[in-house]
């Protein structure tokens, strides 16, 4: 279970404090999918970043499986991400100097798993890019890059998968394919899946929809 308790995030912008998240409270039960929607600048990506421990809230607590991650050190956060969380970015963020298969292998190597090569091949097979294993990110199309990024996010069988506008940079057909992959994994493994998106159609596929505006939760709709 994921729980946000009174989480605020304020940053300095041009010398003035700017509130991105404002006393947000939120509960995401394990195994559920949540879509966060809202206009640009409403704090969607920040929320996701805080959940992954990529950033620290100004105040409040974020509990992941009962543990307050705001109290964790940078290295313990890295361990948490390694074991529990998979992250998919809008801009893919593959390591440019590594091949597709190596990008997929990195999280498993960091977690010191065995059979890294076999697992990586099975993952790249799952995203349908076996023939592209030796290619560098610059040699792949946007859709292909994102599929590799998804394989990387799923590599350590995380219990939580976070995706920040994963289709934002892709055409709709490709985007559809990507979303299918993510929801498939969510259903097959019973992971908690948190998705940030502009696309209301996409959002409607999630168990819960959360509408954010000005850093506040405006509406929470559960799918019947």
């Amino acid at each position: 279970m994921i729980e946000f308790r009174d989480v605020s995030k304020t940053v300095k912008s041009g010398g003035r404090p700017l509130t991105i998240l404002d006393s947000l409270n939120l509960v995401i039960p394990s195994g559920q999918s949540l879509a966060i929607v809202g206009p640009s600048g409403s704090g969607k990506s920040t929320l996701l970043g805080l959940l992954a421990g990529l950033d620290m809230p100004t105040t409040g607590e974020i509990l992941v499986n009962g543990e307050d991650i705001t109290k964790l050190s940078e290295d313990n956060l890295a361990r948490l991400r390694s074991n529990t969380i998979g992250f998919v970015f809008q801009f893919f963020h593959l390591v440019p100097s590594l091949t597709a298969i190596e990008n997929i292998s990195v999280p498993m190597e960091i977690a010191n798993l065995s059979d890294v090569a076999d697992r990586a091949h099975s993952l790249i097979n799952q995203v349908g890019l076996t023939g592209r294993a030796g290619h560098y990110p610059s040699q792949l199309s946007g859709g292909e890059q994102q599929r590799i990024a998804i394989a990387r996010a799923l590599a350590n069988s995380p219990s939580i998968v976070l995706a920040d506008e994963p289709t934002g940079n892709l055409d709709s057909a490709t985007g559809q394919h990507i979303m299918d992959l993510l929801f498939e994994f969510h259903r097959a493994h019973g992971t908690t899946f948190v998705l940030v998106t502009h696309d209301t159609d996409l959002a409607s596929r999630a168990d819960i929809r959360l509408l954010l505006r000005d850093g506040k939760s405006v509406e929470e709709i559960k799918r019947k």
Partner: protein
Amino acid sequence: MFVVLMALRELRSSWRRLAVFFACIAIGVGSIVTLRSVIQSVRNGLAHESRTMLSADLVISSNDPFTEGVLNRVAVEEGNGRISQKIETIELPTMVRPADKSRDIARMVELRAVPLGFPLYGSVELESGSYSHASMRDRGVLVKPELLAQLNLDIGEPLLIGNETFTIRGVISSEPGRDIGVFSLGSRVMIDVVDLSTTGLLSFGSRVSYQLLLRVPEPLADELLVDLQRAFANEFVRIRSYRRADNRIGENFQQAENYLSLAGLVILILGGIGVSSVTRVFIHQKIKSVAILKCVGATTRQILAVYIGQILLLGIAGSLLGVILAGFVVEMIPLLVGEVAQFIEIDYGLTLSAVLQGTSVGLAVSLIFSLVPLLALRHIKPSVLLRQEALAKNRIDLVQLVATTAAAFMLMLVVTWQAGSFQVAFILTSGFLVVAGLLYTAGVILVRVVQPLHHARSFALRHAVRHITRSGSQTGVVLLAVGLGTFFILGVRRLQENLVENFSMQVEEGAPDMFLLDVQKDQREALAQFITNFNGNGPTLTLIPVLRARVVAVRGQEVNLDSFEDVRGRGSLSREYTVTYRSSLEGNEQVSGGTWWDSTPTEEVEVSIEESLQGRFGIQPGDQMTFNILGRDVTALVSSIRKVDWGDFRAGGFMFVFRPGPFEDLPHTYIATAHGPSDVKARAELVSGLVRRFSNVSVIDLREVLVTVRNVIESVTLGVTTVGVVVLLSGVLILLGAVSMTKFQRIYESAILKTLGGRTKLVATILLLEYGVVGVIAGAVGAIGAMGFSWAVAYFVFEMPWVSNPILSIGGIVLTAIIVAVTGVVASADVLRHKPLATLRAE
């Protein structure tokens, strides 16, 4: 596992960008390994068997025939078995010439007369067959190949030595018992000691060295040395042991090796500065990758390990490349120094210790200089993947501060280790820092000076200058490295010019340029006549009477003779001095204490001493000094102190000058100074004529010495220039690194310029101007530094006037500017080729 894999994978893509990194290390390591290997090779060649060097276990030497006392004691030691073999050899410098009277040529040589049984250790090698004493029997002579070339003689032809005609029987290719590194007046000539007497060279006053070579049963040499030194405390002899010679040679070479390899270390440290700047830029380009790694669960420690691992791999690769480079250079050396190789047989090759030292220093420098910039990795936050933000900068980063201090300390340790002395390390480090600091400051000021060009009319110039002065550009580092290279090269050139100029000036000026040694009393008039006949109305001969004297007591206190310390070369009064007597001061002398005598000869013995003796031994006017002259003790009153300008060698210089009177009737010889014709042929005629007529007289030709000095200065200059070129090369490398590091930004900028209507030519002009200006500044920094340096050395060290040479400075600046501009533009060729659309789309 992750760390190793990741380091290797990263290297695959980043090695191109980090190529400068390992080139910097390779050049530095290459210099160190080369310098150390060469010196170690030379040292092995010279000293691998120093018993052979002395060709004996113990050598007793004296400038006079051995006294009964010495000979008796040696006989006693032979009797009780402490000496197992003894031979006596005699050495003296003299002139030789072809027997053919029509040939006007003569050469000074170092004659060694040896008996049967020589050498005790080692062997004489002849070019044709093996050496035997029999080959010299009955007026045979062995010579070095260079003498045959100089005199245009061949084996079997006659050679005149003194009054005797010898036959050349063989050519010496190597010979033991020659102290290498000691300045010698001529090449070696060997004859049978039996034939020496008939040459007439053992006449009074000639500079003969008598040597007793002793073979001593192995464990007894040290003890016998001490005993003999004690026994001969009052004899005028020197005793040397092979072991001590070995140690001394060892120490000298160790020191030379350490000091010279510091030149390599300076290059490596400069490379280190390059490494540091390359790493800094590299980290900036890796921000995103590092953030991704952190995002997928890598800890900071793992990431640091990845990049340190990468640096280590590059450091090892660079060091190995350096070793390979050094291998090539060392292989080439025999080809380069063919001339020297004739005299000394040396097997040039890389030595294991040099390779190990070079690579470990290379690794250490890679780590030391990259560690601090690498620590910036800790500040990269994974949140940069969500939104653009600058690298977080903590106001004071304690870890970075500690790391910087630790790096400085480690560097100091490395320098100390390489120099073999903390003091030298300290001087070198602070010297380097001061020079680097000055050059850097000059660079900063000059960059300020070009600042007004921001408002220049020309668009290209305006842009070029903005690039230079923009913060974050690598201008500072490039200026330092290129400037330092220019500084080395120009500095040493200037110094060379000044030295040669001053030295030649002293020889020109119609001053005496020939010294005639061992002129006998009864030869004076004939010699003066000979010179006058030859020179006509030109300058005449000046004769200076010389005697040999030893100080035996000062103020009644006995001075320790040839004591331990003396043998080890510490300054002591009791060595033999060449002294003279005259009534007036020479042009290069001034009285600084007491009073100079008037011209009337007296029976009373008075002496004037050189200033340094007053300082070193506290001798004052009014003190009594006792000298041993020609075996007699003579007590003299110190009546004056003289200051001698040793730089002005024309009038000679004497530590002790006596008042005329008491010595005039004693047997002694004269040194004559003469001015010979400047025409080479006439000069050779004069020398050979002199030697034919006065066979015992040795001629030292200052003009020939000048050529030698010039050659020596030239070789030193060549050496330092090479170092300078290598420094400049690493400067160019750092420049290349700076260019390729900032290339992405430049490509982007030029794409925008092109989109806005700028043509390729404009972009090229901006680049050319930018690097041209950097080059001019670097050249100016180096030239200013070089002027300051050469002036300081001329003024403070050599105390001679400084000659300015604007052409050299301007030439240096122009050349540096061209090198930098060409390098910069060529390295940026990509920037010119890139099509703007592709660039902008990729961004």
